[in-house]
């Protein structure tokens, strides 16, 4: 709503390449999130754990300490004060760790970027006392940490994120279906991937996740080179997932490639919108907290 008018200046954000120099992923997450939250204090209307939400009638079993006595004094009735932060939920972070995610033309790979992004989101959610789960997949599930809100669970999640290595080619339908089967509570599912699979397969996987009532947030992570195709010399292009080769003269194919990419992104946007999913294209050259900020703005519009 008013988020755009109070958005922090991009210059304040930390360059993702700089983050790669920080070896501790928790430190990275803290750096990003705390910097991000300090910026949010300027906007008191944002945030969701400290804000008053509503009054409701007291029901037997409610903690009597939560009764608002001032309202009782005025109305002679028991009302309990509720806050938004109390709508705590589970957030499951799903990261694509296929070989295509290992591509990076600007000093940071898509996988690294995804690791930072999921770590930040986990850290951020944990501070809100949300339970955080994590899954990594390529053509099958490589890592899975169930969502919990206990102390020390964040370390488990961050450790799982940190040790990820690109392994195989990506598949969407089956791994995401497996993840969906393991989710016990409905919550927020964040998918971070370059979405390199057949369009229908990708949408099938995402819809499997959304089937149980989860709110789906898709971060489509692409490298600037993939978005601009700014190669200038003919070269032997090697598919990182399949190993296929193709002699490419970029000037021949650039226009058509860019058209196809734009069409693909537009198609994801359209389909996700239809299925009430949040879709966001992220360029790995963009700062992480800008991505977080954009995401939270969108989330705030939903609550």
């Amino acid at each position, binding site marked *: 709503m008013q988020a755009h008018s109070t958005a922090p200046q991009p210059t304040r954000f930390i360059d993702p390449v700089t983050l790669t120099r920080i070896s501790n992923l928790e430190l990275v997450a803290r750096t990003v999130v705390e910097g991000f939250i300090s910026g949010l204090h300027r906007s008191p209307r944002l945030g969701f754990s400290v804000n008053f939400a509503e009054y409701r009638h007291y029901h037997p079993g409610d903690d009597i300490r939560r009764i608002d006595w001032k309202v009782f004094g005025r109305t002679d009735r028991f009302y309990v004060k509720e806050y938004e932060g109390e709508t705590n939920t589970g957030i499951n972070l799903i990261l694509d760790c296929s070989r295509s995610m290992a*591509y990076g033309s600007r000093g940071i790979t898509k996988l690294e970027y995804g690791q930072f992004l999921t770590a930040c989101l986990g850290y951020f959610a944990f501070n809100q006392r949300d339970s955080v789960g994590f899954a990594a997949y390529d053509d099958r599930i490589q890592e899975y940490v169930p969502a919990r809100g206990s102390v020390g669970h964040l370390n488990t999640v961050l450790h799982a994120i940190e040790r990820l290595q690109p392994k195989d080619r990506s598949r969407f339908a089956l791994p995401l279906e497996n993840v969906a089967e393991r989710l016990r509570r409905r919550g927020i599912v964040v998918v971070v991937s370059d979405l390199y699979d057949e369009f229908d397969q990708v949408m099938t996987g995402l819809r499997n996740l959304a089937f149980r009532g989860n709110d789906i947030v898709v971060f489509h992570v692409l*490298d600037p080179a993939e978005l601009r195709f700014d190669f200038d010399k003919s*070269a*032997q*292009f090697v*598919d990182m997932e399949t190993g296929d080769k193709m002699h*490419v003269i970029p000037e021949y*194919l650039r226009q058509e490639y860019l058209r*196809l990419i734009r069409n693909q992104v537009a198609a994801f946007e359209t389909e996700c919108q239809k299925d009430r999913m949040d879709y966001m294209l992220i360029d790995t050259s963009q700062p992480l907290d800008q991505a977080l900020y954009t995401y939270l703005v969108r989330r705030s519009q939903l609550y």
Partner: protein
Amino acid sequence: MNFVTPLFWLGAFAATVPILLHLIRRESAQKVEFPTLMFLRRISKRIIRYQKLRHLLLLLMRVLALLLLALAFMRPYRDRPRVAAASGEPATAHVILLDNSMSMAHEDRWARARDAVAAIVRGARTGDKVALLEFSDRTSVLTLPATDFAAVLGQLERDPQLTDRATRYGQALRIAEKSALDAGTGKRVIHLISDFQKSGWAADESDFRLGPGVELQCTDVGSDSFSNLAIGDVQVLENDEDAAGGLKIRFSVFNFGAEDRNAVRVSLSVDDRILSEKRVDTPKGEVRGLEFSTPTLIAGMHRVALELEDGRLTRDNRFTMTLQARTKIPVISVESPGRGMAGRPPSFFLANALNISALSPYRLSAVTVPEFESMGAITGGLLIWNNAPAGGAAVQKKLQEYVKGGGGLIVVLPDGARAPEFNRLFASWLPVRIEAEGNAGRQPARSSEGYALLTDLRIDHPIFQPFSAPHAGTFTGARFFSHARLAVSPEGQILARFDSGDPALVAADIDKGRVLVFASSADDATNDLPVKAVYAPFWHQMLRHLENFRHEKPWMDVGDTIAPRKLLVEAAVRQGKGNLDLNQAIVVMDSRKERVSLAPGSDAVAVELAGYYEVRTASLNTSVAVNPVLRESDLAHGNPEEMAAGWMSTEAAAPAVVSPDERPTAEEQEKRERLWRYLLLGVLILLIFEGLLSNHFILRTG
């Protein structure tokens, strides 16, 4: 094609630079890991092909520009003779003699001959010169020796046409030899393409030999097995059995082939209507005589044709004629009835000679002097003053007017009996006098035999011309027992004398008319000529001379000349028409309805094809029949090797060398080398296009 600086061909290697760069860049392309090729693979192959094609076009333009540049520096020029010389042999002049005589129409000879010409032209080497000549009894140069073979082949498609002319090799070989020598090449070959008819070699050409250094190559399209029928030896005779004046047409059917031809249909048509047909069997190599009779033809010109059926060579199957059926010309004999021998009229023998048959153009009638005097003005016909009295001044005046108006008069003076009277009245306007000496002008025979003979005949004169040939009739047997002694003034022309030296026949032109004076009798009173065979032809010839008659052959031969104006004048005279506009005279070949062009600067045309030709102007027309020469129908096949051996020179062939005339002048050389300018221009245009195209691609692809 030759080059001034051929070493510049090494520059052509520069053209490989773009190709090598292309290949090297392609091979050494670095490997780039890319997340996925799924989008790149989805890009339409058509787009990729189009992109590749554009760049291939650029590559080709660059390569072509470099090649043209190298070629331009090599300074190419056209020097065909030198190319031929460079191959080790001098340039050759191929002079092709194509026989287009009538015999080449036999079966497929003409098509094979044309194919042979095309094969020779295509087989000529670069730098050779080729000339194409067609020949029959006339030789035409279709193309002069030239290096443009395509032009010769084009000419071969357009020009050569079969004619109905006869074959004559000698003249054709002479012209071909001259053409070959004028070509200015080191080697000369005459290609004779013919059916090698034996009849094509005339006896008067037997000593002809080609000069040294001229080679003769023969292509024989003839054959020893052939068959051809033809019509010849045509004669038009009067039909003695037809009192109405019909004609007999005698002719022969010649079988020139090597097989018997039986039941061949032969027909006679008059004015395109078939009147009669016959079947004839003609053994091989033999001749069969035939005869047709025609009914009496009405006055005027008639087209008469003899035709036989022969599918092998059809051009000589039809023999055409134009027969002129004339009305009888009246001939009046003015005589004294009682002066004939034995009670016969003086014109007794004349009547028999002139009224001989329906075919005779004359009809004689006898009148006395008073009857003649009482006749009105004489406007037509001929007149014989047959030893009649001279008559009065009125008669003489009438005679003078008749002669001066274009009439013809024969004065018969059997002796000098009428000398005073003749000299008084006739001699005043005729260049003849009678010398009246002793015995009233009657001269005794000078010889011991008591008679005189005719001598000193002017056989070049039209009257005696038919008798000039051997066995054509002789006057030596005629005896003249007495005659009038004539004295002839210079205006008179003595055509015959008696052996005494006295003039026997004197001719004179009086204004438009003609007069003959015969110094003996027209009957047997003073000579025995009437009982000799030459009597009737002699009198016919005298009358023809008087009417200015020209005997017309009923047909012409192919190759003869048609003079349309002359023919029209003669037709006008026959038909009594005037006011001809001869400038509009045209000749039309009747069968094709094609106008025949007259030779430039001439009012005549030589006919190439047999058939009827119509000569016409606005108010008059006449026809001419043209037939092939009979000997051309004889397809007897000669031996080409023997014939060629007879034509070849016995001297050693001249060494084949490049003539100094072949060396080009500086201007010619510069002209030949002009190609490099166009090549550089081409390079410039290519590079401009390449630049434009390249920029266009760069802008399109960013």
